[in-house]
């Protein structure tokens, strides 16, 4: 890439006082050393009293362009405003995003690198904790991931592993999707038939595929997404629902093979493998960068592990797993003697000895393993030492 790309980051807003300000803050913190980014907040006539004025003032303080539509448009038409503003304003790309997200610092750099890796790519979506099938499984994203620096670290870690690699996916999700403006001109806008929203981006990406363009996920970028809370409150979704049935029916009618294609894609197991790989990469990087603890015992402790922790559960057929920030991964060891010294393998994984080894209960090989791991040992029996 020799030229600087010009990106319009259009954040669509409808109420969401609790989440939008953090999203705008994170948008302002995006690294612009390689590309130019202008942020546009598109307030879809939020009805929450005083909220639009507050948001306008926050945007003015941060020199962020703000626009409140004179009437409520619904998500597809509000997104269209962003697409058209980018096309009309001579931008090279438009990044459409929800307002309940946290953007990592490397967002634009990575999405542009992915987009420009092949000129038939019409859309690039990011990994997330809450983006349908493009979610890396996490036990407690709100507690563990709702923090800009953590999100940026995760994204940077995935960049180190995957760089500008992309995978083709059945459809995009507009919680955070990068579209080159040439694709807007070629494919068109979101279809207003999807009313207040949901499925419009599926329709758009399927239309782009029917024209021969690719719909992708960039593996080297991660965006935190809180989810559908505000849409439930606004009555856009039924309580507990994740989509709008009437809109799915339109997609089914227009693309009769879509569901089967998604089923086949999921059945291939490629995404599951990638999810597991991402979790392992994240945990390994954290262990090497921040140090790690080891917990040993048949009765492993429950609860969240904020720091990188390797769990050796001798009672499990897959006894060595690693946890960090709600991500879980297996080291793929069975504990068989053929695998060699487990302690050594764990040290190689963590890039050195553990900070501490927490022995929850002792078994026949505990002492050998503790010695092989090195690090300071603490015995923390999870039952009283004396009856």
């Amino acid at each position, binding site marked *: 890439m020799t030229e600087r790309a010009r990106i319009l980051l259009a954040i669509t807003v409808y109420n969401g006082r609790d989440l939008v300000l953090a999203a705008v803050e994170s948008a302002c913190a995006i690294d612009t050393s390689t590309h130019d980014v202008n942020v546009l907040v598109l307030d879809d006539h939020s009805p929450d009293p005083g909220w*639009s004025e507050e948001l306008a003032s926050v945007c003015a303080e941060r020199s962020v362009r703000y626009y409140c539509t004179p009437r409520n448009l619904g998500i597809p038409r509000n997104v269209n*405003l962003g697409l058209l503003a980018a096309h*009309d304003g001579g931008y090279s790309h438009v990044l459409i995003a929800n307002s309940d997200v946290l953007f990592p610092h490397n967002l634009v750099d990575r999405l542009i690198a992915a987009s420009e890796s092949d000129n038939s790519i019409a859309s690039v979506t990011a990994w997330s904790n809450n983006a349908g099938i493009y979610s890396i499984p996490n036990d407690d994203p709100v507690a563990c991931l709702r923090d800009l620096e953590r999100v940026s670290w995760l994204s940077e870690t995935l960049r180190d592993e995957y760089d500008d690699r992309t995978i083709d996916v059945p459809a995009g999700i507009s919680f955070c999707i990068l579209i080159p403006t040439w694709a807007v001109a070629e494919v068109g*806008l979101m279809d207003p038939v999807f009313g207040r929203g949901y499925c419009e981006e599926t329709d758009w990406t399927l239309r782009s595929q029917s024209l021969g363009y690719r719909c992708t996920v960039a593996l080297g970028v991660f965006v935190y997404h809180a989810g559908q809370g505000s849409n439930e409150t606004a009555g856009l979704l039924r309580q507990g629902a994740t989509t709008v049935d009437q809109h799915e029916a339109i997609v089914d009618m227009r693309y009769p093979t879509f569901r089967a294609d998604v089923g086949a894609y999921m059945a291939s197991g490629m995404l599951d493998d990638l999810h597991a790989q991402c979790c392992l990469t994240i945990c390994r990087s954290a262990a090497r960068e921040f140090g790690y603890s080891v917990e040993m015992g048949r009765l492993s402790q429950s609860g969240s592990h904020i720091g990188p922790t390797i769990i050796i559960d001798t009672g499990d057929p897959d006894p060595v797993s690693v946890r960090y920030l709600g991500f879980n991964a297996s080291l793929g060891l069975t504990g068989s003697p053929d695998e060699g010294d487990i302690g050594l393998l764990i040290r190689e994984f963590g890039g050195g000895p553990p900070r501490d080894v927490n022995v929850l209960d002792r078994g026949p090989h505990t002492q050998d393993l503790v010695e092989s791991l090195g690090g300071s040992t603490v015995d923390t029996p999870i039952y009283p030492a004396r009856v």
Partner: protein
Amino acid sequence: MTHDPTVDESLAPGAASGHGADPQLDRINLEQALRDFEVANRRVLDLAHRLASMHAELLQTRTELSLTKIELQDAQRFLNRIRQSRLFPLVRALAQTRRMAKR
């Protein structure tokens, strides 16, 4: 009391009455709204034509179904008359005998 046509009563309560002053976005918004309106209008016309055509097809299909039901009832009545005739057991026995003889 007269109605003030400049007051848009459809605005949601609490919403900002003014909006971000941005002539470029105002223009784009208005142009696109007019296009969306045209598209929506064309879709309504198209759907109305298709609805009318589907309605005609539905009526035609219903008529055909009714006629077919009448024909079926006639055929069933005719079959019942045959089964209830005095000759029917004899003909059935003959047919059975012929089948056995062929084996």
